[in-house]
């Protein structure tokens, strides 16, 4: 057993102990966060030590969870995701105490911290599990702990509702995954993942059930609706962990089962590819039309999960065709994007938390002008947005570039013309998604951080304390460093898939990606322009107001009006409507009051989930009538059941 895996195991055990310690004794925020941060650091160091090694633990036979004794496995794939988990956990832990201070009496610190430790433990457990039973236990710990964290502000009705929706999603996910596991066990006769291969066609039912369960948890269209409820309600460090790591855990499982388990079922692969493309587009389309900062980020998670799954499905697809080179590029893109999205999305969630902390609102129509009062948070948010918009030289670009490169290479190497056309079409779709992402984050940055404050509370906002600034700055730097160093990060990831019979040696393609050169050139030129052109202090004056006197808050463009042209184009999908009421005596020429109210309906929720929930409700009410509360009726049931058993016994004898 290597040192790295021992560190990981020890920190998992510590987390397990801490779960109960926090329950028994009310923890101090600082101490608890210090412990969580150290667990995060241990995960990072353990993961780095475990790179390129495979460690299998078999805990002695007398501890068994029902069916099988616990088995754990740390390989490079798990280590890679543990690295992401550790980094983000540490940042969130450092950020937490000051942030929680502002929620002081709204949360119960005992439950919060024990759920927090259980959440991290659950995620780590899923990553290092080696058989289905351990996986399922850890998966449940992760799901239930995160549901508890969503409802941290337990007195808020909105949080309760969000947790309810989230719980339904996790129950469905667990149900499908358990069903898939049971079928796989009945075919393979073994719970261990090492012996699970999905290449025979009689395992495809299990594969599709597993895939369904995992993509529900990953928030893929059309199962994404829990994300925009759960992420905004959870405290920011928790949303950062949920969006940054938890949805990636599902992606990790998809990679472990279907890339390493060689899924060969073409309809499933095409289906995953199509769902991934739809998620990317649908997610960003809804993100741009949101009014609340964290909901924007939650929908953008749907988009990014879509992008990652484009990479994963392309990898499986290309692997089946024997195009290992493309499979490697696509998987590298997916892994880099998982890691990168973890960094920049948690960064953005932490910044959204800082905005909430300073201005006491996340409603974009009440924010504004924070870049001047909160410079550090503003820079971190802009850096995170640049990374998520895939602007070079940030890490978002490196990973998206791998996806583009994989798609482009597929478009001239895949054997079927239709496949080539699909991959080329996906390039067009991804570019459209990219442009919409830029529009979304331009809106988020501009409305929250630029211009004038739109409400008194955002005018009074002050910069957050140091312990919240440091994790933000650190993550922003990570985004930049991971971006410029991606040509060196990628080759080890490419080595995860064995085989070298690709058409192009894939490692050399990074020669065409001069990211650090771009970064260096831009820095030098910007410094030159500041030094030589913009070197004099400008004359400061009012913004041009057409001679109508000073510009008020109402003359500033809101997020809704920024997004309106795009919303209008997609009004069949978004059900976007503008209700305009003009009142006044001479309303045509001298209106006294103009009210404009945009409205948007999520088609999936109103047309699909609401009716489904209604039907379920009606059925359960009918079943509920059986439980009438009358002893006579219950005696009748007992009698009927007895008769039935007797008859059944006779019949079956």
């Amino acid at each position, binding site marked *: 057993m290597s040192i790295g895996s021992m560190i990981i195991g020890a920190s998992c055990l510590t987390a397990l102990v801490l779960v109960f310690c926090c329950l028994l004794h009310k923890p101090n925020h600082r101490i608890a966060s210090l412990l969580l941060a150290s667990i995060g650091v241990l995960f990072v160091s353990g993961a780095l030590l475990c790179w390129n090694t495979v460690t299998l633990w078999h805990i002695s036979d007398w501890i068994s969870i029902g069916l099988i004794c616990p088995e754990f496995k740390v390989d490079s794939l798990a280590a890679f995701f543990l690295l992401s988990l550790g980094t983000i956990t540490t940042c969130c832990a450092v950020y937490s105490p000051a942030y929680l201070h502002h929620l002081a009496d709204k949360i119960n610190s005992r439950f919060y911290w024990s759920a927090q430790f259980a959440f991290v433990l659950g995620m780590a457990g899923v990553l290092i599990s080696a058989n289905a039973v351990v996986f399922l236990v850890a998966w449940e710990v992760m799901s239930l702990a995160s549901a508890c964290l969503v409802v941290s502000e337990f007195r808020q009705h909105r949080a309760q509702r969000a947790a309810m929706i989230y719980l339904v999603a996790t129950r469905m996910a667990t149900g499908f995954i358990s069903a898939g596991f049971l079928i796989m066990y009945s075919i393979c006769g073994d719970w261990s993942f090492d012996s699970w291969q999905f290449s025979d066609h009689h395992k495809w039912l299990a594969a599709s059930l597993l895939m369904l369960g995992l993509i529900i948890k990953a928030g893929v269209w059309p199962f994404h609706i829990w994300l925009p409820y759960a992420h905004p309600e959870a405290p920011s460090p928790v949303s950062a962990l949920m969006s940054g790591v938890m949805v990636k855990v599902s992606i990790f499982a998809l990679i472990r089962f279907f890339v390493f388990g060689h899924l060969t079922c073409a309809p499933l692969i095409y289906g995953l590819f199509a769902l991934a493309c739809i998620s990317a587009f649908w997610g960003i389309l809804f993100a741009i039309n949101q009014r609340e900062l964290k909901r924007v980020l939650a929908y953008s998670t749907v988009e990014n999960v879509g992008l990652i799954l484009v990479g994963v499905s392309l990898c499986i697809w290309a692997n089946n065709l024997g195009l290992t080179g493309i499979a490697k590029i696509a998987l590298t893109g997916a892994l880099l994007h998982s890691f990168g999205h973890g960094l920049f999305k948690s960064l953005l969630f932490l910044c959204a938390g800082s905005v909430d902390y300073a201005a006491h609102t996340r409603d974009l129509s009440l924010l504004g*002008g924070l870049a*001047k009062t909160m410079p550090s948070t503003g820079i971190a948010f*802009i850096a995170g947005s640049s990374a998520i*918009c895939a*602007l*070079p030289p940030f890490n978002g*670009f490196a990973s*998206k*570039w791998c996806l*583009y*490169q994989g798609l*482009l290479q597929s*478009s*001239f190497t895949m054997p079927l*013309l239709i496949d*080539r*056309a699909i991959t*080329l079409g996906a*390039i*067009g*779709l991804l*570019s*459209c998604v990219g*442009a*919409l992402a*830029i*529009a979304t*984050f*331009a809106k988020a*940055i*501009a409305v929250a*951080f*630029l*211009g004038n404050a739109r409400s008194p509370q955002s005018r009074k906002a002050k910069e957050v304390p140091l312990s919240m600034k440091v994790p933000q700055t650190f993550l922003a730097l990570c985004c930049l460093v991971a971006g410029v160093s991606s040509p060196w990060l990628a080759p080890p990831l490419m080595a995860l898939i064995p085989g070298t019979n690709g058409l192009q040696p894939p490692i050399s393609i990074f020669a*065409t*990606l001069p990211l650090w050169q*771009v970064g260096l*050139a*831009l820095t030098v*030129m*910007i410094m030159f*322009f*500041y030094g030589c*052109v*913009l070197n*004099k202090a*400008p*004359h*400061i*004056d*009012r*913004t041009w*107001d057409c001679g109508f006197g000073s510009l008020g808050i109402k003359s*500033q*463009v809101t997020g809704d*009006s*920024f997004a309106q*042209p*795009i919303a209008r*184009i997609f009004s069949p999908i978004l059900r976007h409507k503008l209700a305009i009421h003009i009142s006044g005596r001479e309303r045509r020429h001298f209106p006294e009051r103009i009210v404009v109210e945009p409205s948007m309906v999520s088609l999936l929720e109103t047309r699909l989930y609401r009716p489904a929930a209604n039907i379920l409700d009606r059925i359960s009410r009918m079943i509920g009538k059986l439980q009438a509360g009358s002893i006579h009726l219950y005696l009748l049931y007992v009698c009927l059941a007895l008769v039935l058993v007797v008859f059944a016994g006779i019949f079956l004898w």
Partner: protein
Amino acid sequence: MVNIQNALLWGYLLVSIVIVPGIITGLIRKVKARLQNRIGAPVWQPLLDLIKLFRKEETLSETASWLFRFSSALNLSIAVYLAITSPWISPRPDTGACDLFLFLYLFAAMRLFTMLGAMDTGSPFGPFAASREATLSFMVEPAAILSLASLALVARSSDLTVVFSNYTSQHWALWVLSGSAFLLASLVELSRMPIDDPTTHLELTMVHEAMILEASGKNLALVEFANALKLSILFGISAQCFLHAIPGLMVNASPTIHGIAGLTGLSLVAGSVGIFESLSVKLNWRAAPEFIAYSLAVALIATLAALGADFV
């Protein structure tokens, strides 16, 4: 010998970066003026305007944050980087790889920061223009990427330097289609005529000009220069596409001929844009997607041509 030639090429590139953008902008204005029966300003007038702007004092809005000046410095840096690395003129020194996706995403970075700069001053005009820019960009981005991706597909490389160094390609129709699609997309990307008239000043309909409304003096000089450079790069790429479509023109030709052909092609593209802008009218905002659909359609035809050409 090689060193002298390389130094000359670098000199040519740097001089072009400084001079060509101004001349090309001036050329378009001159053509439009002649078609309107005016004499018009001399072709180099934009260069003189730039020099004037560089000497003027800057006035900054009190609402603006650090981002306002940073965005113009960043945008010009990106434009200069792209002008050095991308194959918009010929001949070029060896400047390394210019990846197709890097090229387009650097332009996207320019767009993001122009939009942010526009929204930084609290004025309503800039954000409305930025909103229009965002709307146009997501519609036109697929056309831009697909027209170049279809060339990359046939060249089997996403490096534009490699794509454009192949002068012996037989697919002249593909070059014409991609060049046209890219040119139409550039007109939208640069918010030029059928989408927006850069010569009128009606803030309520403008796209690019309204975004830079609050920039002044040296800052405006940076913004204007960056935009002129972007225009030259985008038109230059389509001019190079058209030059590649003429069989045998550039094969084994001397650098002088390359240079003359490149500059002539760029001037011809700029001139025809001038003629097109004189003959067309600005479209209603709601009709803009229809124009973009043309560029997307040409790009899709180019894609199909590329798929077909590569498959057989």
